[in-house]
């Protein structure tokens, strides 16, 4: 949670205060941008533009307590812009031969990183944002709705459609790929609830 006193000071042109905001929230913005866009350069551009726009526009922010939601919307706009500009993230990722399976689901079936990556890249950017905010930042749909400025029902439907699309993509992948024969390393079990 970013302190509203920092926001207020930055609104009045205090660059040191804004540096504090950059340090507090910049990493998270960059992580969101990267996980959504799946490209470091695009993520850098989106993050940089978001922070500079936030600095420029900060005096217009009426409620300092809404800073995080506000800057998240700026990031979303910039992710859309970068995505449109490059459109590199649109095609599905080609399979990378030899990459290790690293994720094991609760039922014991193996979902490789590549399959997840390919399935995720089939999602449109709005679906990706919903997925990242929900599963990476662990935000509930009501907060995501606030961040994206959309109804809660839309968040639910985006998440539902995203998972459905990913299931379909993974199933299709499994039908076309050679099954993994070696037992996968069970890593990050602590992440499995």
């Amino acid at each position, binding site marked *: 949670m970013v302190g509203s006193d920092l926001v207020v000071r930055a609104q009045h042109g205090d660059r040191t205060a804004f540096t504090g905001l950059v340090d507090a929230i*910049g990493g998270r913005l*960059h992580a969101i941008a990267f*996980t959504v866009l799946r490209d470091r350069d695009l993520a850098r551009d989106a993050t*940089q533009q978001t922070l*500079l726009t936030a600095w420029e526009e900060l*005096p217009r922010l009426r409620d300092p307590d809404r800073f995080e939601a506000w800057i998240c919307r700026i990031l979303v706009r910039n992710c859309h812009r970068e995505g449109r500009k490059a459109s590199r993230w649109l095609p599905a990722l080609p399979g990378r031969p030899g990459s290790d399976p690293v994720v094991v689901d609760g039922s014991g079936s193996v979902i490789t990183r590549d399959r997840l990556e390919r399935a995720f890249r089939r999602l449109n950017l709005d679906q990706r944002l919903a997925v990242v905010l929900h599963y990476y930042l662990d935000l509930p749909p009501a907060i995501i709705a606030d961040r994206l400025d959309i109804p809660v029902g839309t968040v639910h439907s985006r998440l539902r459609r995203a*998972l459905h699309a990913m299931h379909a993509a993974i199933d299709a992948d499994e039908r076309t790929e050679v099954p993994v024969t070696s037992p996968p390393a069970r890593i*990050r079990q602590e992440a499995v609830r």
Partner: protein
Amino acid sequence: MNHVTDERTDRSLGRDLQAWLEETVAELPDGDELPIDLRSTVLTRLSNTPQRRRWWPRMRFPLRSRATRSARPEEPPAERRTRSMFSAIRIAAGVAAFTLVASLALAAGPLTQTSVGPGAEAQAIDPDAFGGFSGTMLCGSGGYGSTTLTDWGSSTVGETYPRCAIEASDPRISGNNYSVHDYYRFDFAPPYGVRRFASVITNEDGSWISTDAWGYQQPEDGTMFYAGRFRGTDAYEGLSALFVLSQDTWGLRFDVEGVIFPGDLPAAPEPPIEAATASD
């Protein structure tokens, strides 16, 4: 049953997604921190990026009345308002004087025979040529020039602003701007400075060249205030422009306002000797 299965597989996929997203971030060189070079780039660019501070409600053309200005809650501080009003009134006075002269001339004879100052004799006046404008000027960084320290401060010649862009309500005055400044800085408390500059505004149709331009630094907040007279070339031949630029709080963004008019300013009158004598 199917619904239950879907929920279970969704939960399972959700867990996989969570782990995968966390891993992809963890594998970034800086993890979930902002990359150091990106942070540095942002903070560097920050110093040249002014905040947008409601310059648009303060557009001063058409000129607002004193009552309208004082009614706005987000008006600038008193010092800046006084200065802005002063400049607006000065331009308004110039506009009124010009209008009066033009009206008298129009009343005296046909438009094509009107004389509007030296250099504009026998030229027709296009009513569309005249017009007030407002807008912004945004500058990139420039050259610092050569500075000589003095007893009272410093003297600098050749400070350049090569990458300024003017966006004005009148497209004739919009374009790229290149200025060269010479200035004195007086290191009193508070310090202040005065300067003269040469400037060219260029766009596709022609250029505006400054013939008399100066500026000073506000002692109270360090912001700059410029005024200048420009003459048009090419498509703007026969036109003049009076310019007022005031720095928007800090940084290299300026509010711009002024007026384009045919011909040139009247020649400067002789000093009012009688009035000066009376005040001695």
